[in-house]
């Protein structure tokens, strides 16, 4: 036998002799289950006649030294087009009006999350920064997750704090703050080898400036002068969001059911329900298709009004995001996978209208929203 055998003939001799027997040569693949992934995503969103958003995102996740995981992402929102600024009843019924020139806004955002495992316990700390011309946000979060029952049950608890600063592109004197504290409690439970459920509650208490500096209500009355009222909202907001997610795989059908339901309420009088149901169908080893349908419904805030009430109250807003309405959004996602690369393309449509509100009775002056969006993404794992 040669002292140095670079051409691999020793191995070849052994393998050749072994394969004279009725056995298989199995490719020796030791997959390090991925240590991390990086990805890029691009969102294109277009409302009929109104706003257009382009958002590139870059993100990454890495695990190292067995107990550490770092996750980071950065995104830029590029918004162009028009946004309803004024609700006026000059023509009889209150309607949304676009005033002023098209806006062009950019928002830069980045976040970082570090997690360390201590056996069944994982502790995380995260930081998120967001900056646009008229809104700066700094937030941090702490989270603890504990695995129980051989990882069949996981409980989670979290605390977060945001410090936001609100400015105005129109008014250089506006410089207000808003601080929010959030609390989270949740449980994830494996139900069977093919299904699991997660339920999480998040409470938030915020104080500060909630008014929208760009929205106005212009109301004409039968008698008396018309009133142009700025958007005025309470100086605090308590919210509760309860999100439950269910996943079930059906091996015989080569598909997975994904269902999410979120209940939301806050002390502004808004109650909202979100339900999304999706079916991920595996077509073959490479391709999967995911049709989904999302339904959303919300009640109006107590102080929502498309016209200024008389006597004029201290808080009032005609912003249709605080009105009563409902929306459906169907979407379709195609996924293509090869080795360590995954490509994803999603096409979605959003239709928000007052008559889609559950139980009817949607807000007057609600401008029906019709928007298309497309998301393309590539992920590489290593």
């Amino acid at each position: 036998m040669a002292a140095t055998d670079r051409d691999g003939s020793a191995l070849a001799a052994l393998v050749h002799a072994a394969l004279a027997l009725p056995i298989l040569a199995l490719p020796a693949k030791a997959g390090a289950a991925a240590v991390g992934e990086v990805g890029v995503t691009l969102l294109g969103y277009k409302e009929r006649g109104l706003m257009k958003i382009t958002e590139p995102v870059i993100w990454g996740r890495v695990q190292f030294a067995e107990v550490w995981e770092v996750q980071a992402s950065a995104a830029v929102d590029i918004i162009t087009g028009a946004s309803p600024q004024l609700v006026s009843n000059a023509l009889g019924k209150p309607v949304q009006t676009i005033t002023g020139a098209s806006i062009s806004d950019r928002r830069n955002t980045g976040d970082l999350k570090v997690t360390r495992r201590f056996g069944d316990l994982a502790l995380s700390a995260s930081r998120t920064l967001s900056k646009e011309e008229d809104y700066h946000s700094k937030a941090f979060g702490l989270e603890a997750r504990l695995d129980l029952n051989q990882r069949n049950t996981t409980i989670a608890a979290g605390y977060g704090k945001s410090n936001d600063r609100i400015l105005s592109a129109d008014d250089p004197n506006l410089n207000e703050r808003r601080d929010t504290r959030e609390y989270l409690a949740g449980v994830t439970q494996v139900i069977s080898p093919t299904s699991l459920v997660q339920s999480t509650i998040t409470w938030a208490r915020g104080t500060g400036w909630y008014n929208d500096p760009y929205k106005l209500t212009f109301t004409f009355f039968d008698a008396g002068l018309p009133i142009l009222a700025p958007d005025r909202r309470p100086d605090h907001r308590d919210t509760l969001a309860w999100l439950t997610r269910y996943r079930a795989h059906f091996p015989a059908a080569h598909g997975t059911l994904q269902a999410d339901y979120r209940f939301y309420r806050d002390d502004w009088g808004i109650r909202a329900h979100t339900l999304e149901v999706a079916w991920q169908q595996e077509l073959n080893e490479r391709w999967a298709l995911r049709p989904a349908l999302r339904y959303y419904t919300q009640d109006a805030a107590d102080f929502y009004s498309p016209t200024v009430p008389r006597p004029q109250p201290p808080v009032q807003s005609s912003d249709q995001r605080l009105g009563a309405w409902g929306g459906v959004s169907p979407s379709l996602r195609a996924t293509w996978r090869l080795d360590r690369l995954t490509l994803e393309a999603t096409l979605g449509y959003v239709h928000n209208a007052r008559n889609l509100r559950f139980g009817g009775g949607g807000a007057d002056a609600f401008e029906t929203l019709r928007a298309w969006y497309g998301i393309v993404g590539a992920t590489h794992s290593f």
Partner: protein
Amino acid sequence: MKRTRFAILLVAAATLAGCVAVQPYQRGYLAREDMALEANPGTMKALEKTYSAKEAASGGASVGGGGCGCN
């Protein structure tokens, strides 16, 4: 608030009662990508932007995400 809390406990108890203890070697299906509770971070951010900018509701399964002008 109370009604909500009670409903949660009910859901939790009901699901736990119907559960089997899944052994580590039976977790193959649970590790599938389509069984994950969230899509990849890029897609999640894009979807969040699309919907939350128009809706009053916010919040999901995490804290410390900060806010935006969303005008």
